[in-house]
């Protein structure tokens, strides 16, 4: 049973309030840090509407009585194809305050397909604040963590609807849990935390999960990845054998050309480019058409939020998203003002080109702050099969040498116009887990020191070819495979290898395809690879500290798969890690299950300190500037924001409030 009004309070409810406060309010601590550390990466929150920094207010709280019908929909409403706005909006819709003024309706925004998640961001059950520290309610109004985090109860807002008019209710969450994540066909290997979990529907809007082990981080998950945890059940039933005749279904799927019902289900359920038109969504815009070159979106007639004038959001009526494979063409199009918004595939090095566009093509180039703790992190494979190389990688002196051999300041000026921050992979300065030395460890440029360390390791150029060799005379050559994706990896690595060549290390670069990155990384076949250190905020760091703890296997990291497997399989497979690694894993194991904020912070810092001391991965430049291109006619885009996976890029900055000026 749940508290509806704060009036009568049972002890149980007190706990609920406290815990929800915990879930939402971790930042009471972090808030202090804002003023403690100040770096280039930090944004003064006063540039955002104050209402953004608290949980969204609702129409009733702001005494908004009348809601306005977007002109785009009026005809349909007249024809009776669509219920009037009053009936489409929830009982008490959330109100979003634009950065400048309430906008005007209309227009088609031109964007790149790669920016579809940024222009049309997810509507998660919970959401994240602009400073990427708080978790706020969204479609879920209240939540309760009880039973040391083993039981979590959620309560939805009343009257929120999917874009097809179906209500968003508890069934949609239950459906996801029972028929998707616990379906052996669909999810052969579920996330261990879900194994044995139960879900329970309390009423249409209230539901509850029970876990074998505490899972308080589900809250963070619901905020960051929440759209994955809810399914438009009324729609998806027709593709699920639990609800329709299997034979008939498979027959239908085969005709569609899909190999199995799971393939089809995943293809349309996940946020892939194949989501079929008119698939129900909660986002501001609804995909209606796809061509070989474009995706077309219309405004979601049932979008649940309004502006302070009672106008249903979004302001913009349609999106035309062009699919572009080639990043150079993309940059060119962006710079020549052929889109209204572009960001995701834009590279820092191209700033001059974009700035040129400000003059010639009338675009506006905003500089947002990337959340990456380091744009590129080197991952020496500590579990590599090659004995000699393994010994070298596992020798801390080698990793230190690699780090100090890099001239980060020069790199910063060459690639980042001196606007980045030389640092090791670690959380952002505003995080409650942050300590300055985590970022600064071994970031000084000291090739001689590097040389000394390498000599100590008896790695010396024995055949006078200018490169160091193993003690036994074998050549020491390392192949670094990488995927040039999201951050400027290619140029960074060219630079890095040249620094390492200067200290006598022969590193060979090989760019690989996403598919190859995955298969080779997950199989631990890469001698060395790189990724970008995201998951650097209070939202995701506690949930996936993958750079700092062997607790995950994916295409992002390939530096200790066997140790990670060992942990994930509870010691059944993989390889038993050394003591210090075991220590890391136990720390995280506790952190992930703890409901005590202080303890969480303490453990988090232990983990981060270990990386700073051991350089499990090596960082370059972090907190870099992210170009965000906005056309002259697109208004209300905040001038600055944090850019990254941790906050789903634009989610906290409410693209639904953007509008096109006539």
């Amino acid at each position: 049973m749940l508290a509806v009004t704060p009036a009568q309070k049972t002890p149980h409810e007190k706990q609920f309030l406290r815990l929800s406060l915990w879930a939402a309010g971790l930042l009471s601590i972090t808030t202090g840090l804002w003023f403690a550390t100040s770096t280039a990466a930090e944004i003064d929150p006063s540039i955002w509407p104050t209402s953004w920094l608290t949980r969204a207010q609702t129409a009733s709280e702001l005494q908004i009585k009348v809601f306005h019908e977007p002109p785009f929909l009026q005809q349909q409403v007249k024809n009776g194809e669509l219920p009037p706005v009053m009936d489409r909006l929830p009982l008490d819709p959330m109100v979003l305050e634009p950065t400048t003024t309430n906008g005007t309706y209309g227009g088609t925004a031109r964007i790149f397909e790669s920016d579809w998640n940024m222009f049309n961001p997810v509507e998660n059950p919970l959401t994240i604040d602009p400073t990427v520290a708080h978790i706020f309610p969204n479609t879920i109004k209240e939540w309760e963590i009880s039973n040391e985090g083993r039981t979590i109860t959620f309560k939805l807002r009343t009257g929120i609807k999917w874009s097809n008019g179906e209500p968003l209710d508890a069934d949609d969450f239950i459906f996801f849990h029972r028929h998707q994540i616990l379906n052996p066909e669909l999810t052969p290997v579920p996330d261990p935390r879900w194994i044995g979990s139960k879900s329970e529907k309390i009423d249409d809007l209230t539901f509850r999960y029970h876990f074998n082990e505490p899972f308080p981080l589900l809250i963070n998950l619901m905020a960051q990845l929440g759209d994955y945890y809810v399914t438009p059940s009324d729609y998806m039933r027709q593709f699920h054998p639990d609800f329709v005749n299997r034979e008939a279904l498979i027959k239908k799927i085969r005709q569609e050309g899909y190999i199995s019902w799971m393939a089809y289900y995943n293809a349309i359920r996940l946020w892939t480019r194949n989501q079929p038109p008119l698939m129900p969504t909660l986002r501001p815009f609804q995909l209606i058409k796809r061509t070989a070159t474009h995706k077309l979106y219309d405004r979601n007639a049932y979008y649940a939020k309004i502006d302070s004038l009672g106008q249903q959001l979004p302001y913009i009526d349609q999106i035309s998203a062009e699919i572009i494979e080639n990043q150079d063409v993309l940059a060119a199009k962006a710079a020549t003002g052929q889109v209204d918004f572009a960001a995701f595939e834009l590279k820092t090095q191209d700033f001059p080109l974009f700035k040129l566009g400000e003059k010639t093509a009338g675009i506006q180039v905003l500089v947002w702050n990337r959340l990456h703790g380091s744009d590129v992190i080197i991952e020496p494979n500590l579990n590599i099969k090659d004995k000699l190389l393994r010994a070298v990688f596992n020798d801390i002196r080698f990793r230190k040498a690699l780090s100090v051999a890099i001239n980060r300041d020069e790199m910063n000026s060459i690639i980042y116009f001196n606007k980045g921050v030389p640092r090791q992979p670690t959380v952002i300065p505003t995080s409650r887990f942050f300590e300055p030395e985590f970022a600064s460890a071994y970031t000084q440029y000291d090739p001689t020191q590097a040389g000394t360390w390498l000599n100590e390791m008896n790695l010396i150029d024995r055949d006078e070819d200018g490169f160091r060799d193993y003690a036994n005379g074998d050549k020491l050559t390392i192949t670094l495979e990488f995927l040039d994706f999201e951050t400027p990896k290619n140029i960074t690595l060219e630079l890095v290898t040249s620094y390492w060549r200067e200290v006598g290390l022969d590193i060979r670069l090989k760019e690989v395809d996403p598919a190859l990155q995955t298969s080779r990384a997950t199989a631990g076949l890469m001698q060395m690879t790189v990724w970008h250190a995201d998951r650097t905020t209070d939202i995701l760091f506690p949930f996936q500290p993958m750079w700092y703890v062997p607790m995950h296997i994916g295409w992002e990291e390939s530096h200790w798969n066997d140790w990670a497997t060992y942990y994930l399989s509870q010691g059944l497979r993989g390889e038993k890690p050394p003591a210090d690694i075991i220590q890391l894993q136990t720390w995280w194991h506790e952190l992930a299950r703890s409901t005590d904020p202080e303890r969480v912070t303490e453990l988090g810092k232990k983990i981060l300190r270990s990386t700073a001391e051991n350089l499990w991965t090596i960082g370059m430049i972090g907190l870099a500037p992210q170009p965000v291109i906005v056309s002259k006619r697109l208004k209300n885009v905040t001038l600055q924001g944090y850019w990254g996976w941790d906050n789903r890029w634009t989610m906290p900055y409410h693209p639904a409030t953007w509008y096109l000026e006539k």
Partner: protein
Amino acid sequence: MSDHPLYEDLSTRRLTWLRFKRHKLALMSGGFLIFIYLIAIFCEFFAPYEPNWRNPKAIFAPPQEFHFFEANGNFQFRPFVYGYTLRINPETWVREYTEDTSQKHPIYFFSKGQKYQFWNLFTARHHFITTAKGQYLHIFGTDKLGRDIFSRIVYGARISLSLGLIGVVLTLVLGVLIGGLAGYLGGRTDNLIQRLIEVLQSIPTLPLWMALSAAVPVHWSPLGVYFSIIVILSFIQWTGLARVVRGRFLALREEDFVIAARLLGASQLRIITRHLLPSFMSHIITTATLAIPGMILAETALSFLGVGLRAPVVSWGVLLQQAQNFQVIVLTPWLLIPGIFVILVVIAFNLLGDGLRDAADPYGGHQL
């Protein structure tokens, strides 16, 4: 009685040469190519810098211009360049370089500069063109890491040009051997080979390259990659030549002198090498000359797709791959200079090939 007394004492070789000499363009091209290949052979000497040496003071720096007159107008015989002063424009984020007349970098020829390993044989310091220590010279400007474009072009020439040459030799061996066999033996062998060629030619070449070069193991040394690329390129190019050779063989097989040779009991091999091959050497040489540019272009295409050679190896393809985007044209056009060299060399080879063809057999050699 002879109509043209002049012709009598002309050996075919001399005649060919006479005809060739008439192609002024072909002659010039030949000269140009020899020149370029010399540079490629002695690239360590001609390049002022080692290809991967970076000048941190000059990122994306434009070409320096030669001066004979100092700012104050004094003439001096030794040409010199001015150093850069860099300013990152806070408005445009553009690196703006201006000549710093205070720092004069005189240019020295045939004098000591950066140390280098000539063909990994011996160490030397002398360069064709260089500047004093601590000073720098970037005739064609620098790239995103401050590497000297000119030096990279010179080093790239060695890779790209040798690749073309070796590749063609390989192609010839394959083409002549297989085509020759098909044509000479005929019958079932011929049929089989015909099919194979047909198949290879009906698969779009690019995907063929892609798949093959994607199969090159990642950990191979740059040299290994270099050779595997060559093999891949020739593996696809030989079919064309093979078809031609086969055709010629079929025709020649029935020629009297071949039959005569056979009657005299000459061995197959002898017949082929002594009688058949020479009879269309000229044609083969021409085809080869015309195939080299194809190779060079193919290499650039592969590098463009990221499946060709890769850093730290420097080939013209690799250089162009870094230059193939909008930004370059708008902001740093000098990165396209390697393209000019590719174009020149390819044209030169074509002209030379035409010249050779017309000279060798003015009537034949026109097939597609």
